[in-house]
């Protein structure tokens, strides 16, 4: 084989590194040099291809391990969000198209000294950059509109969680983790204090409309559920509130339903989320 040097590597050196290259364990700089050498040097392709052909087969050597069911939901949700952002950015971008810039003055037409840096900023390239920046700002604006509600909701939720956990840490208090029947449904926490007052924080609730309210219930043993308070939910999907109620004792279940209006005496099925309250080990 004729010896060539491309990208600072001889053919022998590339051949020497070939197994590590196809196995993906060279440093980025090393593998970049190998790749650039290969682009110029077809003589090594056959050997490299031979070694490389085994590599995808190694995938099948991994012991099968089942992923959690929630992983697919996470991926699909992230892709949906990505798609929505892409569409909003695409919708925003055409509005940012600038009118065509005026033709630049030719260098020969204007007598400017070479050191006139200001000239750089009077040339259309500047207008082009400004347009790019504007498109980016609008795309970010679209993101922001979408994210603002989510961020506000997350902040409210975080504040609520801290408050609930503080309540749950007090003597005699119990904590309930609230969840719906599906993994994608609303989740939250409730702290039932020794005096019976309940602090609840929820997220991922569907926004209420009209007179609708979410009603919280305490269920002790086989007794009828006791309504302890209702609340409306906005676009953020988060809610936090504290309600007073006489203590029902240990082992109480906290449940949440969606009611057509305030003041429900019995829960409207289905239950949106529920959880049993337990004293926290200190």
């Amino acid at each position, binding site marked *: 084989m004729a010896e060539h040097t491309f990208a600072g590597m001889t053919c022998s050196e590339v051949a020497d590194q070939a197994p590590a290259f196809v196995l993906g364990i060279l440093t980025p700089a090393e593998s970049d040099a190998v790749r650039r050498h290969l682009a110029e040097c077809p003589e090594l392709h056959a050997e490299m291809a031979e070694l490389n052909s085994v590599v995808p087969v190694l995938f099948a050597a991994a012991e099968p391990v089942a992923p959690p069911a929630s992983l697919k939901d996470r*991926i699909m949700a992230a892709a949906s969000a990505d798609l929505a952002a892409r569409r909003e950015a695409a919708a925003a971008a055409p509005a940012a198209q600038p009118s065509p810039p005026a033709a630049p003055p030719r260098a020969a037409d204007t007598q400017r000294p070479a050191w006139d840096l200001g000239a750089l900023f009077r040339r259309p390239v500047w207008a082009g950059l400004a347009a790019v920046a504007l498109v980016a700002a609008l795309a970010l604006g679209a993101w922001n509109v979408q994210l603002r509600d989510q961020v506000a909701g997350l902040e409210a939720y975080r504040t609520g969680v801290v408050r609930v956990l503080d309540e749950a840490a007090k003597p005699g208090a119990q904590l309930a983790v609230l969840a719906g029947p599906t993994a994608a449904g609303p989740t939250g926490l409730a702290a039932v204090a020794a005096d019976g007052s309940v602090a609840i924080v929820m997220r991922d609730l569907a926004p209420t409309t009209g007179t609708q309210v979410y009603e919280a219930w305490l269920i002790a043993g086989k007794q009828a559920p006791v309504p302890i308070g209702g609340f409306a939910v906005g676009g953020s999907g988060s809610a936090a509130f504290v309600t007073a109620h006489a203590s029902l004792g240990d082992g109480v279940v906290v449940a949440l339903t969606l009611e057509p209006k305030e003041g429900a005496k019995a829960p409207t099925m289905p239950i949106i989320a529920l959880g049993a309250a337990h004293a926290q080990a200190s």
Partner: protein
Amino acid sequence: MSDPEIAARGTARSDADRTDRAWMDRLAGGDLGALDLLYEQYGAMAFSIAYRITGDRSAAEDVVQDAFLGAWRNAGRYAGARGSVRTWLLSIVHHRAIDAIRRRRPTVELPDSETILPDTLTLPDAWGDVELRLDREAVQVALTRISHVQREAIELAYFGGLTQTEIAERTGVPLGTVKGRLRLGLQGMRAALLPLDGGRGGGGG
């Protein structure tokens, strides 16, 4: 999990190419159904590879999510890469999993986080159809046909993400010996796998 490539052994590679290309076109066009299908087909295998490399369920989940979102966002670049969707996707998983464990070992030069496609996918086009496609049993058999030390070197590299120097230190042999074991191991596996693959992986020979 069914693997259409294994099921389709013996069908013309060009058919698989067309199917894969159509699949990637749907992904590039923002078709969530195509992503759903991609996950149904390869999600479990992707997770197995990520778990084998990271040894941690939570890290493996993050790797798989990153890889599928990477595929989702970069499906348009698949057109320039040869090889099946399966290899393309699982290479991304491998690349990101190695990236994840190397970040835990700060002495190693980190891969460029902006690099989305693994090295093997940006190679010259001449290598398109030399890919061997076999099931796990065949691979296990092939791994028993090479020597223990060759297998160890390949596994430390491929699933451990160790550099050649690190493998030399770990196994207490000179660097040149590690290079030889990796090469002979890969060649030995290929020799064991080729008859099983009906010669289709012969690179035209």
